């Protein structure tokens, strides 16, 4: 009889089950959720032979520790951190065989914020709307881990794909966020838009999976008031009345009434998952792809 499960020994500051989320339900008010550091989630799965859709654990700030009930292949990616198996050092960013009953501990990151722990077979909690992701805005999916909680594991998919070189993320010493202006940049003055691209911003400690908040000079508005609620994309730079941009991450609300000054394309969002509070933030305006006509000048 198999007992494919893990027991949480040390839940850490905030550890959640994540996968690629549940996009496609925004019209019902359902956030997409899913791993904030998508590349780290995918890599961890690949290292243990899982498809990228398998659920992993996303830690925050202090890592976590789990006891596996059967021998399991595990990989830790994302924020680099000390990894141990029953107290003995084990590699980060590589498949690790953890014997039945042993404790895998992913410690506080050397740099960065969120590590991903993948287990062969994936975390097998119940799916909600096709995803196992914990959505901390609306409470869909499994609750954040608590000490003593037991999570089921799926059956292993097969031998891991070979990985000769695993990308080792450098520390995010400055968070560079390229953005496309709009749709509501006209709600800000020229000076306000210059403040966005030239001001000194930092990651606020009030950031979470819903949004990365910033501290810095407020953006001057050309129009006051709120918009009627409108759809909000992942990566939106929404500006609440205090004038400080909030970068919408995966648990963001699906609609909102504060103006969105610009949007950071999804492919640039992973470093935002690893920027610790206090990290300097720079917003870099991307040009829209020029039209043919503009080219021919």
């Amino acid at each position, binding site marked *: 009889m198999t007992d494919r499960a893990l027991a949480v020994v040390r839940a850490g500051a905030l550890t959640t089950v994540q996968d690629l989320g549940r996009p496609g339900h925004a019209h019902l008010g359902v956030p997409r959720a899913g791993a904030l550091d998508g590349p780290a989630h995918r890599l961890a799965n690949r290292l243990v032979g899982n498809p990228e859709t398998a659920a992993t654990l996303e830690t925050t700030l202090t890592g976590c520790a789990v006891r596996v009930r059967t021998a399991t292949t595990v990989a830790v990616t994302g924020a680099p951190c000390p990894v141990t198996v029953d107290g003995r050092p084990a590699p980060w960013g590589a498949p690790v065989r953890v014997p039945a009953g042993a404790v895998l501990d992913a410690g506080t990151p050397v740099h960065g914020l969120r590590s991903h722990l993948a287990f062969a077979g994936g975390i097998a909690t119940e799916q909600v709307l096709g995803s196992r992701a914990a959505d901390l805005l609306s409470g869909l999916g499994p609750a954040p881990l608590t000490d003593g909680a037991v999570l089921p594991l799926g059956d292993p998919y097969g031998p891991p794909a070979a990985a000769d070189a695993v990308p080792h993320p450098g520390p995010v010493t400055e968070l560079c966020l390229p953005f496309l202006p709009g749709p509501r940049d006209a709600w800000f003055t020229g000076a306000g838009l210059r403040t966005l691209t030239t001001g000194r911003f930092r990651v606020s400690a009030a950031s979470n999976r819903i949004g990365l908040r910033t501290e810095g000079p407020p953006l001057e508005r050309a129009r006051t008031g709120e918009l009627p609620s409108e*759809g909000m994309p992942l990566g939106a730079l929404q500006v609440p009345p205090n004038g400080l941009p909030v970068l919408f991450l995966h648990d963001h609300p699906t609609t909102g009434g504060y103006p969105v000054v610009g949007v950071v394309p999804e492919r640039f969002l992973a470093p935002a998952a690893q920027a610790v509070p206090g990290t300097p933030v720079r917003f870099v305006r991307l040009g829209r792809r020029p039209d043919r006509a503009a080219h021919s000048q």
Partner: protein
Amino acid sequence: MRPLPVGEHGLLIELDSAEEVGALHAELLRRAADGTLPPVGEIVPAARTVFLDGLADPRGLIAELATWHVPPRPADDRPAVEIPVRYDGPDLADVAALWDTTPEEVVRRHSGTTFHVAFCGFAPGFGYLTGLPEPLHVPRRDTPRTKVPVGSVALAGPYTGVYPRSSPGGWQLIGTTDAVLWDPRREPAALLTPGTRVHFVPLETAR
């Protein structure tokens, strides 16, 4: 119809009225169903906009939109969703005062209105329902409640809503329902999806 690019793959289409939003939303769903809309990840109607995300070529769609003729929202031949309500909310008397009438008349007018789900947001399964005429629009409460009970039927601005779960909220509470607004095991999980017609049916209140 004013389309605004949103990031690399999104389009926010601004419209002049809730009716135009409903019509464009219905047209987008029709074209998605018959395969004449380019692949799209999300279609999110809201108060005065429809947001499309996950488009490969938003600029191409902007050009195409200019050639569309969008008919008025077709008559909904599906039966209306009926929501049984006990009109016993703590703000019923305040709403009656704002409407310059009696609580009994609030019940009569609210339950006599045909509502449409204009859009969803705030929480999974929370629908923003339109249908009340402008003189019956009411402000939010000055101080939001820290806990609004699940099933609360509430008013704010042009909208009626039903809280799918207990949460903080600033809307005027006029009643409660036992209807299940959100059930992830149901398809669709939300009882109130955009475009749905809704009637509120008064239950006898035991006072």
